[in-house]
């Protein structure tokens, strides 16, 4: 007799680890985008001014989820754009969205999963 069974625990562990690796790749890409000049239309330089926004990029990886965020108080304004008190509009530079576009999430996850099974 041959009994075939699925090792769900192993699959789950592999998936969790691969998910973390995928999230980490997005985090690294976000840091890359912040420091890269000319990524966003209308801006020749990079996003870095004081370095506070770059240093406030955070990733919190848990077993089945990861949260990527920026903790500096003006992060949302830089990401979405804002209006100065003189009325001038400053366009948004959404480095998180750009990071997600750059990372081949499906590939990273699949490769990670395959290597652990």
């Amino acid at each position, binding site marked *: 007799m041959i009994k075939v069974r699925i090792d769900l625990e192993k699959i789950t562990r592999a998936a969790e680890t691969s998910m973390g690796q995928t999230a980490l790749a997005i985090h690294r890409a976000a840091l890359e985008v912040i420091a890269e000049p000319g990524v966003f239309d209308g801006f020749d330089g990079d996003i870095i001014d004081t370095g506070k926004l770059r240093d406030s990029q955070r990733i919190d990886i848990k077993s089945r989820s990861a949260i990527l965020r920026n903790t500096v*108080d*003006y992060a*949302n*304004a*830089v990401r*979405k754009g*804002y*209006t*100065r*008190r*003189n*009325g001038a509009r*400053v366009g948004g530079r959404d480095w998180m969205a750009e990071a997600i576009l750059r990372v081949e999430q499906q590939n990273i996850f699949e490769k990670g999963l395959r290597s652990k099974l």
Partner: protein
Amino acid sequence: MINSQEIRNVLAIALVSQLGIYTFSNGQTRPAIVIDDNSDPLLDEVKKTGLELVIVPSIRVPIASSFGSFRQTFSVEIIANQWDITQTTLVSMPLILDTMKSQFSHLRLVSAERILRSLKLDNIETFSLTVSQEFLMD
């Protein structure tokens, strides 16, 4: 389809006591609510005070397929700008949300986001919410 003018008219009435003022160079004033579709080019030259509502019809029309059919999504962003640095948009947002919910129940709230005032950026505080409506395409 979403009617920006209708949204403007309803919000102008609901928020009549909260809206700020546009003051034009000739001294004329009017409530600070506008549709941002290039139909009002004078706005660059006005002085803005208090709460301003800017209604932005979407220029992006995403198309999504759903069970083989195609749907077109139209959206409108409502941006509340607070030009008075001693005030915030927080007082007005519940009224805006309640008004939208009661008068435009067919619209779906897509997102609501607040951008805080920052001394570093010298910006004003804003709150934006986006509503959308889907249509089946012919």
